């Protein structure tokens, strides 16, 4: 069940109705939990067992950790949690990849090894909910939070349907306190919640699927025939597609939670206007980048062990972050590129100790940062080639075409090119104008009637968009 479906609209309206009936808070939470399991089972009912297993294991491990002060015992239960969660992730997500890589190495070394390809179906959302349960256990271990007293509240943290399959990755510290007292959206939350859902659907249905995906698919589906201009257009199209697809999903998730009275963290903050890569990762998939920072980078030592170790920690964090996205060397290269960028940025900061100050919004001096922002955008664009290509070989082929002169052979029309360029330029300008602001601040300045007209147009655009039903990109992770 995806957000841009009739099924979800009916499901969400029923859940909303139930949430506003005069039941006790416990019953309402139970309804939300059952609805969340139904939401997950809509993809593949047997995988509910895996979700349940993760939930139960970490519930018990966290309780055991909190019961004892002995470091050895606490570490043991933490390791059980890590092994259970990462083991599941490793089997379902990386089993085939590891075997394929092993076979490649074995054959390269001269061994004739050709095992049968395993048929492992990836449970949807596993990368997301295992990170939620892991963060819970680790936070209990670090004594950041006590273990939850209510299994129902904890199960809600893991399973709550708006975030279940593609984030934002929730933290127990901010979500569990919301489960204590009854929550129901007030008029502001309901009004803005539905606004976020409409904006999210517009980004996904109209911009990502309707305008950009066809161009990206055409180019990356026929790499051999693409020319230089087509390679650039296809990559620009994918860059926009992945942003609008994922930001659209996140806004729908945040909006749906808000309509039920819950607060989710932001997941994107105008990343196309990032100045530098540290800034980029404070704006792109924020819930993942902060998770990697807090639970991986910091655990490895962060920047506390000298520059060499800092760089190594940065690179390892980004490599694993890349691998989190998918079981393929393409994603490892993607992570490696971002790690390289972050290291280079840190190194340059060391050479030029005076920080680059971003002037306050509204000042003309902000304009001198535009070249840096465009450079950041360009370097991130290169990484998207590896993200989208079907293979490492195809990725290098596209890059080669992008940086040479090859005549086009795909026949991408002027209309497609115009759409990609207009949407890209529009996005860059929009992000730059509001980079230090928020959607809420933008709409708060609009008169109510203008807001009404804008949303009416967005609804009309969603309703009349072609019905090309594509899955959210991050469902694949």
């Amino acid at each position, binding site marked *: *069940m995806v957000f841009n*479906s*009739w*099924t979800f609209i*009916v499901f969400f309206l029923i859940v909303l109705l139930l949430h506003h009936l005069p039941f006790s808070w416990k019953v309402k939470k139970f309804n939300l939990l059952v609805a969340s399991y139904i939401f997950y089972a*809509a993809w*593949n*009912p047997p995988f509910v067992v895996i979700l349940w297993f993760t939930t139960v294991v970490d519930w018990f491990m966290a309780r055991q950790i909190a019961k004892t002060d002995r470091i050895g015992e606490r570490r043991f239960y933490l390791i059980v949690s890590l092994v259970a969660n990462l083991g599941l992730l490793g089997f379902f997500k990386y089993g085939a990849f590891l075997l394929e890589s092993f076979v490649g190495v074995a054959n390269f070394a001269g061994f004739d090894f050709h095992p049968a390809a395993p048929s492992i179906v990836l449970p949807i959302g596993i990368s997301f909910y295992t990170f939620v349960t892991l963060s819970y256990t680790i936070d209990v271990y670090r004594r950041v939070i006590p273990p939850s007293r209510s299994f129902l509240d904890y199960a809600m943290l893991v399973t709550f349907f708006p975030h279940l399959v593609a984030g934002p990755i929730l*933290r127990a*510290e*901010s979500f569990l306190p919301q489960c204590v007292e009854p929550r129901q959206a007030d*008029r*502001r*939350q*309901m*009004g*803005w919640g*539905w606004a*976020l859902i409409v904006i999210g659907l517009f980004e996904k249905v109209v911009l990502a699927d*309707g*305008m950009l995906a066809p161009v990206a698919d055409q180019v990356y589906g026929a790499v051999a025939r693409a020319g230089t201009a087509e390679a650039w257009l296809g990559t620009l199209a994918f860059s926009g597609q992945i942003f609008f697809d994922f930001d659209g999903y996140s806004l729908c998730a*945040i909006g749906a939670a*808000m309509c039920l009275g819950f*607060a*989710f*963290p*932001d997941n994107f*903050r105008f990343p196309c206007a990032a100045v530098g890569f540290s800034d980029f990762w*404070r704006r792109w998939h*924020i*819930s993942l980048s*902060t998770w990697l920072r*807090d639970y991986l980078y910091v655990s490895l030592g962060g920047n506390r062990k000298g520059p060499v170790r800092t760089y190594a920690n940065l690179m390892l964090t980004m490599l694993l972050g890349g691998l989190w996205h998918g079981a393929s060397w393409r994603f490892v290269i993607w992570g490696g590129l971002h790690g390289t960028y972050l290291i280079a940025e840190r190194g340059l900061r060391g050479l030029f100790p005076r920080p680059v100050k971003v002037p306050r919004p509204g000042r003309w001096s902000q304009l001198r940062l535009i070249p840096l922002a465009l450079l950041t955008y360009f370097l991130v664009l290169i990484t998207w080639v590896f993200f989208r290509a079907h293979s490492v070989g195809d990725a290098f082929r596209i890059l080669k075409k992008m940086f040479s002169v090859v005549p086009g052979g795909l026949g991408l029309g002027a*209309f*497609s090119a115009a759409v990609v360029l207009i949407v890209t330029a529009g996005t860059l300008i929009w992000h730059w104008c509001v980079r230090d602001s*928020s959607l*809420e*601040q933008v709409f*708060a300045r609009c008169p*109510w*009637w203008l*807001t*009404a*007209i804008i*949303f*009416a*147009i967005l*609804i*009309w655009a969603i*309703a*009349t*968009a*072609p*019905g090309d*039903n594509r899955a959210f990109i991050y469902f694949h992770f």
Partner: protein
Amino acid sequence: MPSSISISNDRLWPAPWLRTWITSVAIAVVLIGGWEGFWRARGFVPRRNDDVGWWAQERGKVYAGGTRSVVLLGSSRMQLGFDTRVFAQKTGIQPIQLAIDNDPGVDVLRDLANDANFNGTVVCELMEKYLVWIGQDSDSSQANQWLRDYHASNVFSRFEWRARGLAQTSLAFRLPDLSLQNLVTNLRQRRLPSSEPFYIAMNPDRSKSADYARTDLDRLKAFHEADVQEEFAHLPQLSPAEFFTRSKLLTVWVAAIEARGGRVIFLRFPSSGVIWQLENGRFPRPEFWDPLIKVRKLTAIHFAEYDTLKDFTCPDGTHLDYREAAPFTAAVTEIMLQKQLLPVNASR
């Protein structure tokens, strides 16, 4: 939560949200209603898209008739060339149209063979070139994608398919002809999309009817001829012996269906002109089709073998016009009835 992560709830501002949304929805209804009314006034009529949802609904019907079910498999030749109304009139059986445009249909035959609950009659379009790829189970083939979606479907996906189908049949603006790209392309030529019906019309049972009088036939014929030439240029060469070996899968699938009381009838539709020359030149009937049917003991009807079928011509070289599809189907059905190939109690 780290202080670096902000939360939307913290930034909410007081606003007349009820008034805003009532106004917004009202304007949206007017915009959508006006948009729909505009295109309806220009003659556009909603129609169902031939998508996985519709196909899956038809696929689910194959069990209801038991041994009296008749299922049609193949490509656009089957969708256009087999007149389901004529067949139903002659036999009293409404066939289930599972042919998929641009797909040979053998993957669906394999699926029905592996389906222990299916024991009906299959009329399967067969062309020699299909056997070049048989058994290779391409993940990207339309049929395999739709089969995966069908078998993975549950109450939610089936509800979604029905809802989408309802939207397509209720709203003219959901027509692919009215997509943004099509609109802009027409507007650049200072005109609006034409509601002049496309020469191929979709029928309510997934069959199609082509009226070649409505199209530029010379251009269409040239297109199909070039397409088939390109296809044959890349088609791996198969010797009669290799072809025969690959055909064994057909016998396995046929045997599976017949063991349950069903039947499989292969049907070779007409080809004409340059395309027939290409096809027959690459796969001469005495070396490929005839031994295949004889030795594998398949039940098959080849258009060239019957006086009542061999004179039908395809305007574009590959598909029958609707005016020809009706008598062609009547003749094929008569052959099947005479040979007693159809389920018992089919009328004469």
